[in-house]
């Protein structure tokens, strides 16, 4: 990082990437791999969490609606109200099988987490 990466109200995209994600029981679920921005509105749509080497499989990517993430200063990471089973059943993809990312897919992702649609806000 060359630039100041966090202020009281702001956090840089570079700093978000690589940040750990925990559940409410403080178990580490994975880490933020990247952040997806809605080009039109400039609003963060998803944090893409990588969930590494699970069940002997390769790394998988879980798009989490931004509203599902809460930053916890003490843990130095994001907390989501999900257990591993819920995460396993959530929409995810691997390096070789990217989804279409159309509105149907995005609706499915948001419905799974019962998150408000970012495009309707």
């Amino acid at each position: 990082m060359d630039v100041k990466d966090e202020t009281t109200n702001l956090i840089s995209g570079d700093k978000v990437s690589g940040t750990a994600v925990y559940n409410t029981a403080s178990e580490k679920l994975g880490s933020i791999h990247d952040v997806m921005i809605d080009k039109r509105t400039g609003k963060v749509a998803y944090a893409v969490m990588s969930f590494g080497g699970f069940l002997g499989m390769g790394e998988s990517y879980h798009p989490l609606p931004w509203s599902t993430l809460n930053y916890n200063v003490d843990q130095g990471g994001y907390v989501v109200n999900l257990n591993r089973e819920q995460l396993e059943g959530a929409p995810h993809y691997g390096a070789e099988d990217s989804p279409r990312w159309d509105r149907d897919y995005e609706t499915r992702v948001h419905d799974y987490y019962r998150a408000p649609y970012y495009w309707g806000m």
Partner: protein
Amino acid sequence: MEHKDETASLISIGKVSGTDVYDTDGNHLGKVEDVMIEKTTGKIACAIVTFGGLLGIGGTFHQVPWHGLVYDARQGGYVLGIPLTQSNGESAFSPYVAVA
């Protein structure tokens, strides 16, 4: 990037960072260094753009509003629709605090 970093409506921060910025005449101005996100709302507050400098060294960091940057696929970079200097001669963008 191992995952899809752009769709019709979305772009990843990993892809935005490092992207060149041009003025409306096609002159190279600098590049996007990072973006700043409002923690609570998830809104992009601004992009941090370096203007000037050689190969990214010695450039100055500035806060540029996200809506001021329009992606141009032909140039493979963002076009800054706001002049760097205002009519009163002052810079249009606030400097951003840099820590080495």
